C-alpha cells in the first residue's frame, strides 16, 4: 500500500470539529504547563545572576529582577573565591576543557577503530572480547575508585588533569566501542568483501570505507562523551582537589563552604558557566543526542 502522499495517522482526525478542537486545546494546555515546570529552574537561576545580593535575600529566589547588572558574571568568571583561590571559575572551566576534550577525542578515536574491528573482522574470541568491553559500560564506578587511586599514584598522576584524562578515556572506550560497533554492523559486509578483492588492506578499508560512513556515529560519540565527561563528578572529586578540580567538583566545593555570606548571584552565574557547554552542544546537536539515547541505551 504505497500511495504517494500517505500522511501519518492522526488519532484526532475524524469526529466532530468541536470535539477535536476541545481535545487539542487540552493537549496543548498540558504541554505548556509541563514546559513551564521544566524550564523554570534554568530561568530562575538565570534571573538570579543579574540581581544584587540584598535584593535576593529580601525578595527570595523566585521573583523578577528589579535591577539588572552584569557584574556578577564577571565576578564569577574571574574573581570569585572558591576553596582558597580567588580566581573565579575560569580556572576550573579551563581544567574541565583540558580534561574533556582530549578524553573525548581519544575515546572516540579508539571507539571507531575498535567498532570497525569488532563488526567486520572475525577471529577467535571476538565475541568474548566485545562482551568484556561492553561490561565496562555497566561496571559501577565505585568498584574502580580504589584501584584507580592506586594506579594514578604509582604513575605520578594523582591530582592532575592528565590523570582524569586517563580515567575518562579508559572508561569512555567502552561506551564508544559499543556505539560504533553497533553502528558499523549495519554497513553491508559486501562492501568490505569488494574492497578486499580490490586489494585493500586493514587500514585502507578503515580510511576509505568506514571513516567516510562514520559521521553520524562520530557526532553521537563526541556529543555523548563530551557531555558525560564534562558533567561527571565522582572521579573529579576523588582524584583531584583544590585548584586542579573540574568545574562540577568546584561548584560543590563552594556550595558546601558555609563560611561567610553566600553570594547567590555569583554562584548562580558560576553554575550557568558549568552548565553552558553541554547545554550548548545539546541545543545544536539535539538530534544526535536523541539518537545516542535510543541506540545506546536500548541495546
Amino acid at each position, binding site marked *: 500500500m504505497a500511495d504517494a502522499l500517505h500522511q501519518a495517522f492522526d488519532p484526532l482526525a475524524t469526529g466532530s470539529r468541536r470535539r477535536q478542537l476541545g481535545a487539542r486545546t487540552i493537549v496543548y494546555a498540558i504541554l505548556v504547563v509541563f514546559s513551564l515546570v521544566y524550564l523554570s529552574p534554568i530561568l530562575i537561576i538565570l534571573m538570579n545572576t543579574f540581581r544584587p545580593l540584598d535584593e535576593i535575600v529580601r525578595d527570595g529566589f523566585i521573583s523578577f529582577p528589579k535591577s539588572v547588572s552584569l557584574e556578577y558574571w564577571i565576578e564569577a568568571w574571574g574573581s570569585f573565591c572558591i576553596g582558597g583561590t580567588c580566581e573565579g571559575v575560569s580556572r576550573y572551566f579551563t581544567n574541565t576543557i583540558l580534561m574533556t576534550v582530549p578524553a573525548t577525542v581519544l575515546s572516540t578515536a579508539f571507539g571507531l577503530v575498535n567498532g570497525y574491528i569488532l563488526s567486520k573482522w572475525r577471529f577467535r574470541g571476538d565475541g568474548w572480547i566485545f562482551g568484556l568491553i561492553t561490561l565496562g559500560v555497566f*561496571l559501577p564506578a565505585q568498584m574502580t575508585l580504589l584501584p584507580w587511586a592506586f594506579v594514578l599514584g604509582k604513575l605520578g598522576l594523582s591530582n592532575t588533569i592528565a590523570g582524569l584524562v586517563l580515567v575518562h578515556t579508559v572508561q569512555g572506550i567502552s561506551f564508544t566501542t559499543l556505539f560504533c560497533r553497533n553502528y558499523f554492523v549495519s554497513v553491508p559486509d559486501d562492501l568490505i568483501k569488494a574492497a578486499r578483492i580490490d586489494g585493500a588492506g586493514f587500514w585502507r578499508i578503515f580510511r576509505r570505507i568506514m571513516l567516510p560512513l562514520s559521521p553520524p556515529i562520530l557526532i553521537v560519540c563526541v556529543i555523548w562523551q563530551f557531555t558525560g565527561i564534562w558533567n561527571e563528578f*565522582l572521579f573529579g572529586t576523588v582524584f583531584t582537589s583544590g585548584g586542579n578540580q573540574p568545574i562540577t567538583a568546584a561548584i560543590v566545593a563552594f556550595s558546601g563552604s558555609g563560611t561567610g555570606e553566600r553570594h547567590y548571584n555569583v554562584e548562580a552565574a558560576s553554575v550557568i558557566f*558549568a552548565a553552558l557547554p553541554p547545554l550548548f552542544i545539546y541545543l545544536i546537536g539535539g538530534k544526535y543526542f536523541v539518537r545516542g539515547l535510543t541506540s545506546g541505551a536500548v541495546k
Partner: protein
Amino acid sequence: MTSRTRKFGGLTPQLVLLPTIVAALVYVVVFSIWTLWVSVSKSTMLPDMSFSGFGEYAALWKSHRWIVAYQNLFVFGTLYVGGSILLGTLLAILIDQRVKYEAVWRTIFLYPLAISFIVTGTVWRWIFHPQTGLGRALSDFGWIADKVDWITDRDLALYVVVFTGVWHASGFAMALILAGLRSVDADLIKAAQIDGASVPRTYRKVVLPTIWPIFVAVAVVLLQFAIKTFDLVVALTQGGPGVATTVPAIVVFDLMFQRGQIAQGAAAAVMILLALMIVLVPYALLNARRNRKDKRHG
C-alpha cells in the same frame, strides 16, 4: 606472497585491538577483583592485602547508616523509575497527537539530561530552600500560609530527591517511549478506530501493550541510574538531613575517602555491583531468549 599476508590482514586486527583489550581486562576484571580483595582484607586507611574474612560485610549490614541507605535506595529506585516512566509516557502520548512545534517540546523536556546532576541538584536545592525558595515565592503570591521546608524534613527530603530525579530523567523516558509509539504499525490504530475504540482505550489496550519491550528497556536503564545515584544527592542534600537521603553510593564514598575505612567501603561497592547484577543479568537473559525465539520464527 608470504603466508602471513595471504591470511588476509594477518594479525593486524588483534594487534590494533590489543591496547583496548588490555585496558578493558585491567579496568573490568583486575580492578573488580582488586576491590573485591580489599573488601575482605585488613585494610583501613591504606591497602593492606592480607586476608581478613567477611567481617566488613557483617559490619556493613549492622550499621544503621547502610541499612537506611539501602532502604532509601529501594524507595528512591521504585519511585524514580515509576515516576519517570509514567511522566515520560504521558508526555510521549501528548506529543504523539501530532502537535505542532514538536521539536520545541522535545527540546524542552529533554534538556535536563544535558545538565549534570550536580547543576540539577544545586539549582533545585535553591528552589526548595526553606527561607528563600519556592515556599517564599508561593507565600508571596498568597497561595500557602505554611512554610515549604520539605528538603530539611526527615520524612519528606527523600521525595524531594525523587522529584528532582524524575525531572531529570523523564525526558529520557519520553524520548524512547515516543520512538516506540511511532514504531507501532499505523494499520493497528486504524483497525482500532474502525472497531470503535476511543483514543484512551486505543492507547491502553492496543498501542502501549504492543511496545512493552521498550518499557522494560527504559526501566532497566533507569534502575541502573538509580543504583549509581551519587551526584544528585550530594548536590541536593549532601545525604541529609541526618541519613534521610543517604544512598549506598554516598556511603561508599564516605567510608573510602572520609573515614579511612576502605575495606568496608570496598564491601559496600561490591554490594552495589551485586544490586546492579540482579537487575541486569535477568534482563540480558530475557533479551537473549527473545532473540533466539525471533530467529526461529523468522
